[in-house]
């Protein structure tokens, strides 16, 4: 099932749902005709859309709002924090083309601090699915939770069959004693490749799909860091405030230490280009990550990375 199919089905069967967009219709192309006046397009007005979503939520609705990740989290930040966060209203933020998915748009469109911003808001819940199946698996619980929620939308397809989503729990793909990779979102695709390459080099490799970043699965992080010689955090986000920071906070909270190698954007935006070129240029292909972990080059072949269906 696709994101749009699930949203359509959910909204048609439960009239608390209102679908909103700040003229970003890529994810809701066919919904206007089906939902009538419960579809609201406010035009290019991210702040007003969030304020209006809060008003609708005040009246018992569950607004599912759509905009590009950078504008939803940054332009409308204070509206999200003040109008949805302070009153703890169930405004559901569907954040389009986050992280590397903004490919050729440039830094204005790069939401690579969204996790840091959103998890800093009291009451807010934060999710980052690995692919479309993972997204659809997670959404019913997210949409029905009483809090505001931030969803880092990722509708890419992978062959991986995800396990059912449990609230606040990570998905443990494999356990390993040499290296464990913690990741979320788009880079799950590359993490699967890293895992294969490292296994072929004889390492015991763990892989965890975090899924939920707030609430975060502290036990999964503690288990991974304490059972592996090396923990790798892999994310298309700034080093500050994302998964690397979350892991550091969890370790400090439980008074434990671990050797952690982060893959993230350190004090820089990424080079705008089509997604496969972005990953190659920034050193985020599975092969590049694996070889950085190993400290040597291998004969492994990087599988082709598909170009996003929607470029902008």
């Amino acid at each position, binding site marked *: 099932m696709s994101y749009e199919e699930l949203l359509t089905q959910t909204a048609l069967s439960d009239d608390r749902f209102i679908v909103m967009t700040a*003229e*970003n*219709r*890529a994810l809701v192309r066919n919904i206007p005709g089906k939902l009538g006046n419960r579809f609201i*397009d*406010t*035009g*290019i*007005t991210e*702040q*007003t859309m969030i304020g209006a979503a809060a008003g609708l939520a005040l009246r018992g609705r569950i607004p599912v709002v759509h905009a*590009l990740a*950078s*504008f939803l989290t940054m*332009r409308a930040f204070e509206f999200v924090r003040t109008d949805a966060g302070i009153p703890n209203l169930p405004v559901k933020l569907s954040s389009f083309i986050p992280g590397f998915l903004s490919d*050729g*748009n*440039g*830094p*204005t*469109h790069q939401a690579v601090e969204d996790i840091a911003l959103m998890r800093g808001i009291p009451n807010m819940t934060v999710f980052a699915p690995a692919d479309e199946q993972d997204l659809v698996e997670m959404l019913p619980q997210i949409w029905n939770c009483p809090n505001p929620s931030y969803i880092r939308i990722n509708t890419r397809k992978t062959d991986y069959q995800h396990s059912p989503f449990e609230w606040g729990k990570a998905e443990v793909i494999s356990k390993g004693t040499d290296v464990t990779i913690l990741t979320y979102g788009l880079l799950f695709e590359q993490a699967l490749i890293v895992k294969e390459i490292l296994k072929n080099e004889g390492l015991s490799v763990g892989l965890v799909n975090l899924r939920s970043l707030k609430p975060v699965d502290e036990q999964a992080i503690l288990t991974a860091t304490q059972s592996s010689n090396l923990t790798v955090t892999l994310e298309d986000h700034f080093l500050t405030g994302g998964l690397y920071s979350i892991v550091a906070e969890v370790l400090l909270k439980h008074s434990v230490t671990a050797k952690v190698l982060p893959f993230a954007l350190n004090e820089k935006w990424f*080079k*705008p*280009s*089509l997604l496969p*070129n*972005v990953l*190659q*240029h920034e050193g985020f292909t599975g092969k590049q990550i694996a070889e950085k972990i190993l400290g040597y080059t291998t004969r492994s072949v990087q599988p082709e990375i598909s170009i996003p269906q*929607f*470029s*902008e």
Partner: protein
Amino acid sequence: MQSVTTHIPGLEATALKVREHIIKMSTGGGCFVGASLSAADLIVYLYSEFLNINKNNLDSPDRDYLFLSKGHDVPALYGTFAELGLLEKSRLKNHLSTADHIYWHPNTHIPGIEFHSGSLGHLPSVAIGVAMDIKIRGGKNKVICIIGDGELNEGTCWEAVLVANAYKLDNLIFVIDRNQFQANMATEDLIPLEPLHDKFTAFGAAVKRINGHSFEALHKAFSAYPFQEGKLNVVIADTVRGKGLPSIERRADRWFCNFNAQEVEDLLKELHGETITQLTSETLVVR
């Protein structure tokens, strides 16, 4: 008023070349071709005839400024820069390459770009800051900010008009590329903007509404700068999204296009008056 009539053939030839550059950038990942084509004549006119900006004065505090706030029409700007010698033509082939800085929105790695953009409704206020400083220093520079009509949805555009009016910024010109469309649909079908002239007038601006594809009309309007002492200048340039290519003109579904090589070849012929192109590439209508 100076006559621009003798310059018009040259401007038209330049604009045609700029449109060729835009079409050539609409493949291999694509670009915002429709909005670029609507702004092309405007940008060619401003850099060729009105603004004191050239490759030798880019570092001069006395040069004029142009801020491209709508941002996604940057292929028109790069095409103009290439034709006017601000940018090597060969670099246009680097569109979307990690080896250069030519991508879907403007950035200051390209000489002549004053400020990055892409997030709508930012540069009207940046332009205000520059215009304020010019006033403080007693300068004569002109400051232009090109704003999309869809962009006028963003509240910051209207805050900027209020502030420009309060500070009597008659050295600032907001140019609205009124191509009647935002990403997915006609502006009047979503968040109506009309009567736009009256709105700006009510906010205290001196407004001219013209045909944004007529060099004569552009020249007549800009020659009257400053329109009125102590007032923000606003030019509403009525344009056609996709101008020059009948196969995509005024089509809501031709927003961001990634054409194949054959389509690019056919569109270049269409631009020069030959048959209408049969487009088969998937239409991408997302913002």
